[in-house]
């Protein structure tokens, strides 16, 4: 074989040779061509060392935050934001109705509880109403986190019944994740409105995991299941959910007090 030209050597290095075997044999015998290839190799290897900036582990989330407001469907106000309604079709989705029901219960409960507190303690300021709203949120979110934790634990423990099973059906967990997803959006937005950034942040992370589960295939292979499990583990979401649940239970204890005792305490306080 005659000496390969530069293009042939580049193609050889790139794995695109028309006559690769021939060039391999030639290189074994020809020192000059070997050196020529080494020189090409040296330049490309040097270029390999040119670093790419690391955009950060949360880069995907940041991209989403930047582009979300520019996407076709825009948020149309606080009510839509709270209810997660986007477009007419959304109103007729059964799960959306369930979510609307959940938030309606939350709002009505907060309203009624607020009214009751006001009647019980004439002249009290808005802190009581805020405390009641917080209590309702604490209870509702606590239950939501409990249910989310259960789904995540079930997914983490799901496995083929025997070694021969090719796929694992996680459809039930997926449907529950979809329901939880709707609720989660409402609670996250409510937490943000209440100024509870830490809770909103945990709910935001939980939302991403629930999205992952809800958007995945219904039937997964053991390997796919393992990948999903690793994604859940990598985010440490189970741990965070447990920590927040515990905090919420503590908060619940400190906010739940009988109204009468609460009122007398206030009076005592005023007297003092």
């Amino acid at each position, binding site marked *: 074989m005659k000496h390969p030209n530069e293009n042939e050597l580049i193609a050889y290095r790139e794995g695109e040779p028309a006559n690769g075997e021939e060039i391999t044999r030639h290189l074994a015998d020809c020192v000059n061509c070997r050196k020529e290839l080494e020189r090409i190799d040296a330049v490309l290897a040097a270029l390999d060392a040119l670093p790419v900036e690391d955009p950060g582990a949360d880069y995907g989330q940041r*991209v989403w935050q930047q582009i979300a407001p520019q996407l076709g469907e825009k948020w149309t106000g606080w009510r839509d934001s709270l209810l997660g309604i986007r477009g007419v079709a959304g109103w007729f989705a059964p799960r959306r109705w369930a979510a609307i029901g959940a938030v309606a219960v939350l709002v009505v409960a907060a309203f009624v509880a607020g009214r009751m507190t006001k009647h019980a303690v004439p002249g009290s300021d808005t802190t009581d109403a805020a405390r009641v709203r917080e209590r309702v949120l604490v209870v509702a979110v606590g239950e939501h986190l409990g249910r989310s934790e259960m789904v995540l634990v079930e997914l983490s423990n799901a496995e083929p019944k025997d070694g021969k099973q090719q796929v694992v059906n996680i459809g039930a967990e997926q449907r529950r994740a979809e329901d939880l997803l709707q609720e989660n959006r409402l609670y996250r937005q409510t937490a943000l409105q209440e100024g509870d950034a830490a809770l909103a942040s945990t709910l935001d992370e939980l939302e991403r995991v629930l999205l992952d589960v809800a958007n995945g*295939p219904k039937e997964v292979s053991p390997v796919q299941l393992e990948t999903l499990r690793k994604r859940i583990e990598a985010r440490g979401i189970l741990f965070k959910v447990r920590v927040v649940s515990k905090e919420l239970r503590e908060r619940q204890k400190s906010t739940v007090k009988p109204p009468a005792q609460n009122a007398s305490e206030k009076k005592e306080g005023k007297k003092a």
Partner: protein
Amino acid sequence: MTRMKDSVESAVDSDAIAVERTLSGDRDAYRVLVERHSANLFRLAYRMTGNRHDAEEVVQEAFLRGYQKLGQFASRSNFGTWVYRIAANYAIDRVRQKRREDARKEKPMRDDSGEQELDPVNFVRDEKPLPERLTLNAELRRKMEQALDTLTAAERTAFVMRHWEGCAIEEIAGVLKSNSGATKNTVFRAVQKLRRALEPFVTKGMEARAMGQQG
């Protein structure tokens, strides 16, 4: 290998479901796709544009365009490849636009004045060309960035996609709107230009290392 294949297939299946949901009105399903593919797009865009600012703009624009064109996306194909191609197309436009702006400013593309300051020992390759063995000082890095800047937008795209991203020639040809033969030639031209620009520094290093070993 089978596990990796399964994992890729899983991501593709999951992408297809997220695409369907987005098309049926669930905008947040698109979030899954954005979060999953942003890092890949950033790597490509950074190598094509050479800076973080432009790379971030390319990534955002690619996802925005992807969202707008999602109705045209055939769900049987791979969303990752599709949005990657949108990013490559936008990046090449961006690089061309920047070149035109630079040309208007008459900014010199090459700067040979610093050659004497280069210490070849710093860029010496070891017996095996492992990139981590190269001590990449700021000067060599600048030379490489300059060498990449001398490539045309098409050459840079071809080189980045082929050499760094490992794309098939047909895929690159799709982005360059060219045929396979012409695309291969574009890759060759890019490597030749880079070689002419960088070989003096790299081989100086090799020789210096060889002399050091003899002494």
